[in-house]
């Protein structure tokens, strides 16, 4: 019985998929403009986009990216002509702009952009010469996650740099940019100076990071791996992403999530339009951008992701519990945000990071 049911469902979805792929690109028969969106798979679920498609006039062709670097490489290799909308990280927009791959976005045609949270309006990232090239799309934070059952108190950044109590039970992401940002936060270097560290500051950072290395169990490079390390007790506290906190809490572990007052590293992906898109195609693309910043999409993302949009379109429609989950209940958290940017001496940062790890 279950089998037949499952089979029927399966058949239905297979048929629907086939119909979609066969008919999808033909939608322009109803005068719909096809917009090609290069994005992360979990952001372009059909039901997230249904409200826009139903209104008509637009169809969406999706293609997916595996990493941000891959997206950049694809566009640099001439992929821009086949894509109308891309999803680069806020800090990466600069690369695309420097490579002349993007066009500035006319915010007048994106009404929902007016609802961007202040921190996103204020950021200089994604902009050049006062023009916006990448509109903040959705965001989150990379907090400190810890085993509340194995730690006495909520940790802050100092746990990764001093004291012996958790020596050999800590983990740090293997990523030069964030590693050095955290050291700078710990050392009290102001957020606005953080990406322009001078030689003296770099030397201090290096010293702190070498001290940190002695306290670490390991550097993690995949979030699944870190989740595993928390679960087996190898690691009790790590600079992390959010998923281990939710996954392991759901599995009954007493997890904690700390957002140090000295600053929290936030991440944000943007929506950006390749340089060649124009005319009716551009109008349709802007319509899609506006939709992605609007309440219909925002609500779906808030529950499905769960992630927060960069606009306040849907915030007030969410229950407090869900707001809490995506960090928008208490908006003051945004005051301590540090957005990732590209340090001018990034090659030296990477070299420093490798020196620390090889020390």
């Amino acid at each position: 019985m279950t089998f037949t049911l499952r089979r029927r469902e399966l058949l239905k979805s297979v048929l629907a998929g086939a119909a979609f792929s066969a008919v999808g690109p033909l939608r322009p028969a109803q005068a719909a403009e096809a917009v090609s969106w290069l994005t992360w798979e979990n952001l372009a679920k059909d039901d997230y986009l249904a409200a826009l498609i139903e209104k008509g006039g637009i169809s969406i062709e999706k293609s997916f990216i595996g990493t941000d670097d891959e997206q950049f490489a694809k566009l640099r290799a001439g992929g821009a002509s086949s894509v109308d909308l891309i999803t680069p990280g806020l800090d990466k927009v600069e690369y695309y702009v420097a490579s002349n791959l993007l066009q500035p976005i006319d915010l007048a045609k994106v009404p929902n952009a007016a609802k961007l949270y202040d921190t996103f309006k204020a950021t200089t990232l994604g902009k050049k010469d006062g023009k916006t090239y990448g509109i903040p799309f959705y965001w989150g934070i990379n907090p400190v996650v810890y085993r509340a059952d194995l730690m006495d108190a909520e940790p802050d950044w100092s746990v990764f740099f001093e004291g012996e109590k958790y020596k050999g039970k800590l983990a740090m992401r293997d990523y030069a940019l964030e590693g050095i940002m955290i050291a700078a936060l710990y050392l009290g270097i102001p957020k606005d100076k953080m990406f322009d560290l001078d030689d003296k500051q770099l030397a201090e950072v290096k010293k702190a990071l070498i001290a940190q290395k002695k306290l670490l169990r390991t550097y993690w490079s995949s979030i699944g791996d870190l989740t595993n390390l928390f679960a087996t007790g190898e690691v009790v506290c790590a600079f992390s992403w959010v998923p281990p906190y939710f996954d392991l809490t759901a599995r009954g572990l007493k997890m904690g999530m700390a957002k140090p007052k000295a600053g929290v590293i936030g991440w944000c992906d943007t929506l950006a339009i390749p340089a060649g898109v124009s005319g009716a195609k551009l109008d349709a693309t802007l319509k899609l951008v506006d939709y992605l910043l609007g309440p219909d999409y925002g609500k779906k993302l808030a529950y499905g992701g769960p992630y927060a949009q960069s606009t306040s379109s849907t915030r007030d429609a969410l229950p407090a519990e869900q707001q809490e989950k995506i960090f928008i209940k208490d908006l003051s958290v945004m005051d301590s945000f540090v957005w990732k940017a590209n340090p001018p001496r990034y090659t030296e940062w990477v070299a420093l990071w490798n020196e620390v790890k090889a020390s």
Partner: protein
Amino acid sequence: MAFAADRGVRLAAPVALVLVAGCVVPLAVLFVYSFFKVDFVAIVHDPTVKNYVRVAASATYRGLIGRAILSGAIVAVISAVIAYPVAWAIAKRVYLLKSAYLTLLLIPLYTGDLVRIFAWRVVLGSEGVINSFLMWTGIVHEPIRALLFSPFATHVVLTYDYLPFMVMGLWLAFESLDDRLLEAARDLGAGEVTIFRRIVLPLTAPGLIAGAMMVFVLVVGDYLTPQLIGGSSGITVISAINDLFGTAFDWPLGSAIASSLLIILGLLVTLAALVVARSTWGRSVVSGE
């Protein structure tokens, strides 16, 4: 004769083409890139040796290359020590089910490196098999944390991962080793150590060298195992190159380190080949009995 030669060329052409397209061209591109420099996200095509100077001047990159080579050598030696008796036993003491033993030996290779790595975590971890057992017996009261996330753990897992290659190399060598030579040596008064040193070792040397080369190169190229098992000291030259290509967009420097590593590996392999070819036994062993 001319016809045969001509046909030989024609038959070899696709092979040469595949080799050039699949092997030489990417390496050539890598090599060429190592002489460029990078300006934010633009590759500047003015030739420069600055990248090589940076590699040579950097204790970190030199150290990482040296560490990779040392690791390769250590694992090759350990796996040789383990593989000799195993290969001997399979070749000379197993008559039935020989292929079953060889298949068994290769099973770890079928599982994929991530599966193996996580299996070893279960074995070596703080709450893992070994520590749980030691705590249960009361030999230790605190888990031995250095069992996992340490250079020791990395080398254990690397040895486990690449041992089959060494065993296969030596097994083939032992299969073609005539037992009567060992009897002859015994008959002439040689003890077991002398027999190993003067007969077995030289006659299985092609297998040993082939196995060692494979293990060595695979260990040098493995960054996943050190990264996931080696803990905070799990950095490798490969992951450093990866960082430079990926997050730093410094392809020229990454290319220069990769080229340096390739050149050093190439020299070592050539040296080994020369030693084999030059040595008196090498020639006779290679040319066969």
